[in-house]
């Protein structure tokens, strides 16, 4: 299991990377492993507002569906539409395959650093 240090993490297993003006959001290695083979991602649209702690889409595996919870409040400025045709990239490269980018961030959840998140996951699993 991989927990890169330049990311921050939520308790619902999303990661957030601060990229200057925008916050980039994806799901963690732990999340993709727990879900199994991702078969589809329900994505928001550019311009949608996301709210910290609330769902902005979901990820489907064959026998489960899991909400995507936004770590931040803001406006979606980019959506990784490549996931529509290649949802498996969430399994293959969870930290490369970002899901949305958010700008005008006004609020942020309490996030964990890599070390705390790893401890959190090990406790859960």
């Amino acid at each position, binding site marked *: 299991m991989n927990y890169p240090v330049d990311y921050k993490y939520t308790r619902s297993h999303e990661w957030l990377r601060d990229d200057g003006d925008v916050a980039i959001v994806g799901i963690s290695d732990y999340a993709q492993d727990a879900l199994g*083979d991702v078969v589809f991602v329900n994505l928001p649209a550019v311009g949608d507002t996301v709210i910290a702690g609330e769902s902005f889409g979901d990820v489907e595996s064959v026998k489960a569906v899991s909400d995507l919870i936004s770590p931040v409040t803001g406006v979606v400025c980019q959506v990784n539409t490549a996931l529509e045709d290649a949802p498996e990239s969430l399994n293959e490269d969870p930290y490369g395959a970002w899901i949305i980018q958010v700008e005008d961030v006004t609020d942020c959840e309490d996030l964990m650093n890599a070390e705390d998140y790893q401890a959190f996951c090990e406790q859960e699993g």
Partner: protein
Amino acid sequence: MELIFEKSVPGRGTEYLPACDVPEVSLPEGLSRKAPPKLPELSETDVSRHYTQLCQRVYGVNCGFYPLGSCTMKYNPRIDEEMAALPGFTGIHPLAPEGATQGCREVLATARRLLCEITGMADMTFQPAAGAHGEFTGVLLIKQYHDARGDRKRCKILVPDSAHGTNPATAAMCGYQIVNIPSGPDGCVDLEALKAALGEDTAGLMLTNPNTLGLFDRNILEITRLVHGAGGLCYYDGANLNAVMGLARPGDMGFDCVHLNLHKTFATPHGGGGPGGGAVGCKEFLKAYLPKSRLMDGGDGIQVRSFAGNFLVVVKALAYLLTLGKEGVPQAAENAVLNANYLLARLKERYTPAYDGLCMHEFVLDLSQLKKETGVSALDLAKTLIDYGMHPPTTYFPLIVHEALMLEPTETESKQTLDQAAEVFLNLWDLAHEDPGYMHEAPHHAQIRRPDEVRAARTPILCQPE
């Protein structure tokens, strides 16, 4: 096996109709389709053999043991089919005049009277076509009741965490918020949690009793009393009525409305996924809210599908009810419960039930220990059973049990069938320890090996390209 389209030969076909004996007319310009639909072109021999081949790749209750929990796969009597196929039923137009449909009306009235007696309800509709459709209708009775009273603050439906997925989905379709009520350690509704959830915003409770763990909630009277006390109504999901029909009535338990699965409890066949029958009964005070057909009955009431519902399914259920009668109905329930308990007693030699003690018509095994020991999952065991000529039990439901296997043998299985099934299960316990790899790959002798469901979902092929 080839698809029917792959057997098609241009120009082939069977003449079923005579030549046209009136002048032909043509469609107005622009309203014709550009090209004929690419339907298969086959001789009747081709068609007959194709469907016979398909039929040989289907496993029905007539093929063997089908202990599919929550689905009540009991034997479907042939006489019921014969009766439903009488031209005096199949040839009747739903909008034929009253004088020409007396038999249909009597079928519905008789089935209604018998099923109201069994459920303790005052009236019943046969319009809903399936269980989930019945739930939808039942919750709409609750919604109309509150609306008619101007009681619009009731926005929540309570659903136990062991419920079928249809319950929360139904409540959501009816515009309600869902409050999940956790089960207590005994697998039944946690009364304290229920009390905490009840309030002025409670529209109602949806409950299956016995529940999906196969347990009869002994607090049932207290539960319905509490819900009524808060001003809510109680909806009985009849999915598990087979355990108690003729022995205990939802009406007496305090429920206000109920749906029945005619295709489970009353022995009408599942048909590979339908048609079903989702009759909905209610107490006197909800009668006015039952659905009607705009065209058959007039009025402006709710309507959940066209006409009077799956009428032929009701004919089958009535034939079954008349056959069993006063003594047969409770006897079926008792033997369903006996068969489940007997199978459970035999399997307990190795397997761990999710809840100890007696069960009702079905029970849940918890295979998490087996999985830990051997790596063999509930799914692996289920798939191995296919090689032994048995339909697997329901897997991974209810959601509150990990590695769940849910078994419902029904009353129409003999002791010999149950003994043979028990032997297979016990042998597979050993096999799981000896050769788990074999079970991970199972089935080995079925129509196909395990299908690639990930591929099916990622790159959907839902239709044969032309």
